[in-house]
């Protein structure tokens, strides 16, 4: 058993490895059949891949910020692994977006060189967590919604989206269970943990209205059998919340309706991108 091989990839032993920032890996879709389904506008498919990819990328970054701050080592590992799964989904989706767009932007260009206004993620992914209870509430909201979405996306007419979704369903099932189990443990715990978990639910649930609002790109692609209309996800996500809150002895908080879909960002995104993009922007194309 040798660990040498694991570290060889870090050096310039081979091909064009780039490790200064970003992935340094080859195209994660290498060899995958990436033809655009007929009747689908490539720009719209690219925009949709960016939406789902940016959701995963920004949520992953927020989760990574918890590493070294989690209450226990086991939770550090869980949060880091969940962040890694989402980063993997983001890589596939941004690669797909770049390819469909056809402007020569790869996953690194899309993650590290886009401006704030070009990001299409939901605002829920951006929020800074006030404490661990907020984190698990937000992760439950995000993963209950994303699991329902990916599960339907496995039937997409776009074979790449369907394949990314099929892998993602298995991963996000574990993410949702992790978050739900913590909400129950804290909600049905001590008076203090109950109070703080209820405060987190009261803060997070009202942010979820935007998750079920349909963007025009989503509506058109859903009609073409490529995308999922997020309005269809509400029932499934509500049922999950109901089951978790009952077990956690917590009460629900109102979810506002008619929130515009993916309309703009909070100031938090700028802070995230400043951290995420600083190395790539200060040393363009740098290697080490």
């Amino acid at each position, binding site marked *: *058993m*040798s660990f040498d*091989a*694991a570290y*060889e*990839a870090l050096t310039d*032993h*081979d*091909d064009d490895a780039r490790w200064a920032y970003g992935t*340094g*890996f*080859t195209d*994660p*879709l*290498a*060899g*995958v059949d990436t033809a655009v389904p007929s009747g689908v506008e490539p720009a719209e498919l690219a925009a949709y891949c960016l939406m789902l990819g940016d959701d995963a990328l920004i949520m992953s970054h927020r989760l990574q910020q918890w590493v070294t701050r989690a209450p226990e080592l*086991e*939770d550090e*590992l*869980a949060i*880091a*692994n*969940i962040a*890694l*799964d*989402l*980063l*993997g*989904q983001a*890589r*596939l989706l941004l690669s797909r977006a770049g390819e469909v767009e056809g402007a020569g932007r790869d996953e690194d260009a899309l993650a590290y060189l886009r401006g704030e206004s070009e990001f299409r993620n939901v605002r829920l992914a951006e929020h800074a967590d006030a404490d661990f209870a907020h984190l698990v509430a937000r992760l439950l909201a995000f993963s209950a919604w994303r*699991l*329902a979405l990916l*599960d339907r996306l496995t039937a997409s007419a776009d*074979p*790449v989206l*369907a*394949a*990314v979704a*099929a*892998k*993602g*369903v*298995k*991963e996000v*099932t*574990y993410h*949702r*269970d*992790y978050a*739900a*189990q913590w909400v*129950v443990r804290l909600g049905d715990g001590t008076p203090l943990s109950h109070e703080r978990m209820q405060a987190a639910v009261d803060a997070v649930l009202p942010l979820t209205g935007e998750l079920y609002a349909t963007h025009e790109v989503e509506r058109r692609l859903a009609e073409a059998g490529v995308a999922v209309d997020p309005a269809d996800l509400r029932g*499934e996500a509500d*049922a*999950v919340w109901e*089951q*978790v809150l009952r*077990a956690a002895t917590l009460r629900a908080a109102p979810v506002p309706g008619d929130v515009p879909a993916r309309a703009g960002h909070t100031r938090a995104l700028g802070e995230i991108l400043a951290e995420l993009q600083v190395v790539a922007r200060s040393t363009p194309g740098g290697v080490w």
Partner: protein
Amino acid sequence: MTAAAVAESVTDPELPLLTLADLGILRGVEEHGSSVVVTVTPTYSGCPAMQTIRDDLVRALRDAGYESVDVRTVLSPAWTTDWITEAGRAKLAAAGISPPGPAPRRAAGPVPLTLGPPRRDIRCPRCGHAGTEEIAAFSATACRSLRRCPACREPFEHVKEI
């Protein structure tokens, strides 16, 4: 040695006791003269070992005399732990890592939520005791959970069913 035999004997960088064949991620090896096309499928979307696996395959096949090596990724059907071979399961158990049980079969409808720890009967790979407990659903890698055995008091890793 055939290209298939070379590719099958490359080991996984995170679980070096397993070959790629044991892990079930090799989906095809096509040999045309001195060129080879290898098809692999990732385990998890974010698996950081994929690039090393690709490099290791290219290096092993070049060392075996193949001039052109193309490693392709296939995402569908998604990898499942059911593809880990019997030999792979035996190697995991011998190394103190509990091999996965059958992957969950889903009924129609939404993915069910698991609020308690899974009630699967997972035996301790060291002492064989059946009543082990989950410490954490995520361990050193995404594909493993951390468990403990109340009989021999040892922690161990379990390859999660997906």
